[in-house]
């Protein structure tokens, strides 16, 4: 079955979720929201999830709204978490998985949401770090972005707002014991991970219609490539059916990424 890139990404991200996860997403997160709902409806019926701004836990909204903060996410939810709960869960390791984006991501999984260029004289002032510090305290972090190019994937972030894997043991010791850090990166071209001795980013799979060379050329640093890189599995017909009939009934993900 034909599927859109956003649908492919959502399905790939749903495979990162486990049955015992308590996962969280922030603002403007239609792809991760779809991933969460799909996982709960397939292999992870005991998954719990929270949408940041609205505090909705286990929302059953039948349409992907533009904003995770939208009150309408409370439809069918089992709890309305105030911000205090969310921050408590973030610090204490109760959230086992979170999806995060970034303006820049570097080869060690560090994330930047603050600025492009020098902090004192930024070329682009970003929105701010929000909760990206918690990439160090969610048990697992899945990074995802809607673009894949060398401006986004840089050798070293201009401002480190979300910790990946510091190459300095004196910094790494500040990571809580329960945290594994970033476990994968999902983009419109490929999936990457950090299963390398020095935690450098590795190409795990390339999406159908794309090549290793293309992914490498769109990445601002050298990706680790272990032998032959597999194709990212395409969504099954059943996965696509669930997405289109039960989760994304208005077809947001079919139009999201051009």
């Amino acid at each position, binding site marked *: 079955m034909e599927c859109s890139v956003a649908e492919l990404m959502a399905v790939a991200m749903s495979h990162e979720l486990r049955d015992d996860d308590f996962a969280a997403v922030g603002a403007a997160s239609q792809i991760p929201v779809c991933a969460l709902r799909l996982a709960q409806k*397939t292999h992870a*019926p005991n998954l*719990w999830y929270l949408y940041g701004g609205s505090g909705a*836990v286990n929302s059953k909204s039948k349409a992907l709204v533009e904003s995770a903060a939208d009150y309408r996410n409370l439809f*069918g939810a089992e709890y309305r978490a105030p911000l205090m709960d969310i921050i*408590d869960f973030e610090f204490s390791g109760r959230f086992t998985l979170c999806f995060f984006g970034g303006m820049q991501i570097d080869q060690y999984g560090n994330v930047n949401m603050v600025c492009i260029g020098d902090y004192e004289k930024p070329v682009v002032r970003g929105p701010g770090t929000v909760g990206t510090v918690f990439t160090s305290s969610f048990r697992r972090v899945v990074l995802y972005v809607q673009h894949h190019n060398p401006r986004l994937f840089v050798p070293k972030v201009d401002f480190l707002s979300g910790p990946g894997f510091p190459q300095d043991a004196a910094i790494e010791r500040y990571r809580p014991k329960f945290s594994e850090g970033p476990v994968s990166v999902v983009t419109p071209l490929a999936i990457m991970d950090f299963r390398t001795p020095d935690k450098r980013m590795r190409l795990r799979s390339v999406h159908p219609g794309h090549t290793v060379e293309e992914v490498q050329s769109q990445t601002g640093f050298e990706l680790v490539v272990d032998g032959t890189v597999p194709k990212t599995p395409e969504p099954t017909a059943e996965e696509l059916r669930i997405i289109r009939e039960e989760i994304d009934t208005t077809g947001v993900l079919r139009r999201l990424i051009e």
Partner: protein
Amino acid sequence: MANRKSKLCSLKEALDGIGDGAKIMAAGAHFNNIPMALVRELVRKRVRGLELIPTPSAGLWVDMLIAAGSVSTVHVSYIGMEFLGLAPNFRRAAESKSIAIDERDEPTIFHGLRATGAGLPFVVLPPIHKMTDLPSVNPKVYKEIQDPFTGETAIAIPPLSPDVALIHFAKCDEYGNAVSAGGRHMEDIIAKASKRVIISAEQIVTTDEISATPTQTTLPGVMVDAVVHAPYGCYPGTCPGLYAYDRTHLEEYYELARKNRTQAYLDKYVYGSDGDAALLAAIPEGRLESLRIV
């Protein structure tokens, strides 16, 4: 598609795995919303050496577990029987040194739990405890620290982490999404700080009933490990919005406790029964109905 797993189980199953020396916290304030069905099951379990972490205002459940011989240490903010007087077994045990006391107070217990629940290494309070004798009798808990912003003296207190929390609700679903009819007191604070959370409820309802009003859920099931259906689970205390405390029964407990005869109370109402069957059968006809709040 797999099925979602129910957390519903029996009183006995819920308390499985609580061993000697566990750190136990039960919710409630005075005679309000105490999880007595779960506490009675704990008495029946005959574990030993428990460390009790009561809420800032507790009494009955602590006194009963002390009488049952299950307790080695109590964190104390207020242990008493409110309008009835002091807690007799607690008082005897404290005066005879048969239990150890970890002397704290309301803000220390609250903020100690907050530290764990919020993932903070410790909490800093203004130095008002320095005006009392508390720091001198519990120096391991109250540590002087300097405010790095003002240079002033402050008091640091450590995180407090119960192994098991026991909480009762008016209703919940089988996944642990729970509602207090009397509004939230500190159920969330307790659950966040505890390694294992066991809840009981007057009524088990559908998840659809819960998700019809998600803003009224007091505790989300994601923080709950086991769910027990326990009607009159707060008796002889109050279950907010559903029934009032039974003063006659409380006085019976209190008088026996004062005379150091709590064992007779436990024999009659707690031991030798599967769950609360003996207790509910022993309550005079009409008493339970008369306590119900319309």
